[in-house]
């Protein structure tokens, strides 16, 4: 019976104990009920997301299709005029988010590099970490107030720059956190190796450790952008709003979120429809950015 690659075994070597013992019926029922309960709770948790998407699609999708592509290419119409679009708001959202990223990415990444690679748990880096936590809990309206105080009042006008500054305050803690996580994910052995070949801390961080942590940084930036794209409160009194295209960064600028806020409560049907369409666009933007973030993280080296 024994095949050439196997040692000789007696039939008795294989355990032949019976496995048809019976579990008490009550235990089985209890297990099934609990599994059902858990599944029910999962469904309940997904319900809000599902219904938001459903509502957005039913209310926003038709407008996107019937007026395609004019919603993307035209300006918002005056009250009681039909049609129109919100190209200025799309551009405004992109511009304010970009300004926000431009400010928060370098500061955020360098802060994380300090706390993880140079400060290494000293008083200052602990303090910075504490401040980051506080900052991420600051209500977004306060970030707007801050930008209003230091940019709008100083420049004497609402502007995309002020909006970007407000958003950067909200993006900063997200970028710091994810970058810190990325840097910490680099194994100790690699750091030892760097020290072993006589690399200075600076050389090691910027040529080996930061590049290896880059997927995390990219994830942080995309997550921060996703957060910023949906923010309304800090933009209300920084970027303000504009019926037309902003001709420079120093002018009031329309953004999707503020447009939704303004038009959703307007007493005109056309405006309401535009608000729904804009809401759908914002959610799709955030969704695609989040998916991008996920694929970026999956590229990580360690």
């Amino acid at each position, binding site marked *: 019976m024994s095949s050439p690659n196997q040692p000789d075994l007696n039939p008795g070597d294989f355990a032949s104990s019976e496995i048809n013992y019976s579990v008490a019926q009550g235990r089985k029922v209890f297990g099934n009920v609990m599994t059902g309960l858990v599944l029910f709770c999962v469904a309940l948790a997904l319900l809000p997301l599902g219904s938001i998407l459903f509502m957005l699609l039913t209310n926003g999708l038709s407008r996107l299709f019937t007026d395609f592509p004019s919603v993307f290419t035209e300006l918002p119409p005056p009250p009681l005029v039909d049609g129109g679009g919100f190209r200025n708001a799309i551009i405004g959202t992109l511009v304010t988010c970009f300004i926000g990223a431009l400010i928060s990415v370098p500061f955020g990444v360098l802060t994380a590099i300090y706390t993880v690679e140079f400060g290494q748990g000293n008083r200052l880096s602990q303090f910075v970490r504490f401040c980051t936590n506080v900052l991420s809990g600051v209500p977004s309206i306060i970030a707007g107030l801050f930008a209003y105080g230091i940019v709008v009042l100083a420049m004497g006008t609402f502007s995309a720059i002020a909006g970007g500054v407000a958003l950067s305050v909200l993006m900063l803690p997200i970028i710091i956190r994810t970058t810190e996580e990325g840097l910490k994910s680099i*194994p100790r*052995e*690699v750091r*030892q*190796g*760097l*020290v*072993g*070949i*006589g*690399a*200075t801390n600076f*050389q090691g961080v910027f*040529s*080996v450790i930061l*590049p*290896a942590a880059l997927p995390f940084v990219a994830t942080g930036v995309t997550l921060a952008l996703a957060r910023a794209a949906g923010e309304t409160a800090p933009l209300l009194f920084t970027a303000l709003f504009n019926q037309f295209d902003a001709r420079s960064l120093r002018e009031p600028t329309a953004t999707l979120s503020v447009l939704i806020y303004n038009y959703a409560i307007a007493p005109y049907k056309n405006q309401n429809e535009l608000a729904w369409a804009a809401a759908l666009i914002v959610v799709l933007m955030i969704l695609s950015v989040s998916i991008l973030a996920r694929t970026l993280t999956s590229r990580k*080296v*360690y």
Partner: protein
Amino acid sequence: MMNSSTYSDAIDNSAAGHPVIRTENVSIFYGNFQAVRNVFLDIPKNKVVAFIGPSGCGKSTLLRCYNRLNDLIPGARVEGKITYQNIDLYDPKVDPVEVRRRIGMVFQRPNPFPKSIYENIAFGARINGYKGDMDELVERSLRSAALWDEVKDKLKESGLSLSGGQQQRLCIARTVAIEPEVILMDEPCSALDPISTLRVEDLIHDLKQRFTIIIVTHNMQQASRVADYTAFFNAEAGETGSRFGYLVEYDKTEHIFNAPKEKSTQDYVSGRFG
């Protein structure tokens, strides 16, 4: 920062053939805990010295002192004097980064950088100011680590894509490429299979021509195969009850293995330890 010109002058003027590293009455502490006590040990040039001894007797701790890696451990402190080419390694004027460029280290776990095979080697050379033909250096280093034939067609691939044994040889090649004078190896073969281990040992034989090597190993055969000199360390409970490591015996390898002077050495090398 140290003045690097005086540093190299001093090295060039040093007499060749004498101990590269001298360890004079060195004790090493982690906070209040004394890990290593009163070690005297001279490392001769272009020889292989093996550190053997039971776990926890401070072999790694001592090894890390030679390239000032203990500086990175909070609370670690060295007493006594360690000189390299007659320079006190712990002189405040000495830059630890400079020390590590001259005294390279290969670690227990292979730790290639998350970069291409080529870059793994070129990076160290570049930051150490190598200005010559980089392709040539990469090839030469990989050849001297007996890795060239296996990777010559995939230099662009990540160093992490190699097998453990190949990674360890890549790490050796990377260390060789920065042209240090001394190479410290802390159990370099403990994560490798027997074949890779033999290849690394062959490699150590070849490298001896150009480098001084200190290797920590738990493998008696390995020590007897590769080392010219062997230092046996042991640990003992001190007055306060905490265990400290100390150097028991240091001699030519054949003496340590065939005719040790101390009973504990005899017991350890013959496997009757503990």
